[in-house]
């Protein structure tokens, strides 16, 4: 079982688990099995409304990536001050048999990102002053 949540998520219904072991909340269609993230009330593939919450796999592989090199405009971005900005990685991580999830990456050096590398879910402080946490994927060290 996952532990009691010990952080404030950037939005409700998005992330469960703990700082040490966070998990993303998606949905799975009871009829066709399609997995989505975030949770949604109907299946985008077969239109069934019989969907259930699903805790997504915490590990996957990097399917594609980029780096956000310029400060996004605010709104909608939560950080108003340009001087606080540091480039951050963004990618889609393929969770085997489930879905590809778009997420921030803890790594922002293009030299250290490659398609197919193993990744694991983690939490990072959400931009802005809310003190909330958002989800991100970090590269998993290759087994020695």
């Amino acid at each position, binding site marked *: 079982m996952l532990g009691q949540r010990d952080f404030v998520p950037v939005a409700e219904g998005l992330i469960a688990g703990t700082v040490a072991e966070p998990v993303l909340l998606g949905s799975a269609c009871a009829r066709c099995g399609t997995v989505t993230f*975030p949770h949604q009330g109907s299946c985008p593939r077969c239109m069934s409304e019989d969907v259930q919450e699903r805790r997504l796999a915490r590990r996957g592989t990097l399917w594609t990536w*980029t780096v956000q090199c310029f400060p996004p405009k605010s*709104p909608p971005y939560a950080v108003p001050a340009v001087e606080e900005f540091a480039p951050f990685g963004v990618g889609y991580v393929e969770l085997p048999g489930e879905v590809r999830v778009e997420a921030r990456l803890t790594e922002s050096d293009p030299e250290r990102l490659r398609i197919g590398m193993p990744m694991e879910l983690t939490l990072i402080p959400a931009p802005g002053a809310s003190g909330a946490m958002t989800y991100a994927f970090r590269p998993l060290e290759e087994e020695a």
Partner: protein
Amino acid sequence: MTDVDMAVVGLGIHPFGRHEGVTGLEMAAIAARRALDDAGIRWADVDFAAGGSDSAGNADTSVSVLGLTGVPFINVKNGCATGGSALTTAHAMLAAGSAEIALVVGFDKHPPGAFNPLPEEWGLGSWYGETGLMLTTQFFAMKIQRYMAEHGISASTLAKVAAKAFANGSRNPNAWRRKPLSEDEILASKMVNPPLTQFMFCSPGEGAVALVLARGSRIKELVRAPVYLRSVAFRTRRFGSFEVFSPSIPLEAAPSPTAEAAAAAFEQAGIGPEDVDVAQLQDTESGAEVMHLAETGLCQHGEQQSLIQGGATGIDGRLPVNTDGGCLACGEPIGASGLRQVHEVVLQLRGGAGERQIPGAPRVGFTQVYGAPGVSACTVLSV
């Protein structure tokens, strides 16, 4: 499908770029008047109109400038496919026989810098924007990043697309970016979202385009050598297509809306991609032109590498693409871009493109516009 011919009989454009003190609606009215003049008709002759902008006002407001004729005028707002949607609407009205002469107009006026759409307007939670994921530029970078790995496209090819755009733009008096840039300058410009640098991206801008369409017997009354609008096809995304503003994408892949719209446009026209002499493709950034070349069926996936490296898509090449400089050189006034593409193809097929006229006597043209969150409109035109 219809047995009645439709043709583009009038072209009007307000130059793209930055125009301080001129509103989007004023640009729209200028483009509309030019299109009417080009067709040799008056506004009162138009019996249907459609148009729109993303952020510069309601197109039908222009009747207060053009004239209060009582014409049915439908406002369209459909992201980057606004122009294509207006054209789809007018095409359908003409095909149905509900109008004989239609005007379509697309215009926009955006502030400098990347677009900042709000998550709530796209069915997403505010967290998506707050955490820095609500950027179209990221999507384009991630789509081409994957595509390059799968299909062997190089960074040099991305740069060559942009270099061609600026070279073509330098020959287009209506373009915004008219200074040619070398491949090296493009590669060395500021990194925006790897693998895409600053000069590989278009910039939000300003401009307006209007077209006059006519059907059946009205065509030959207005022009001696018409350019026919053979088809217009419009599609939204299917489950499995990789689109902008997607917090997740399914493992199962589907054809893009561009692939489906292009196939439908070619089928309706009875003309194949192999017959195309000139094409205008959505080039929001260099990668988009590369991918759209194959999605539209104009080449095979991966073939772009050799085509572009060999200069095939240049004005003197075998398949000239974005001869007016595209979005990269003209900028992106969202509502205007789709109609700019048609404007350029008609000009090329008329043989009236001046310094950037493609050689020979082109007979078939193709346009493709693409926008968030996965819409595409394609046209086939021919003499």
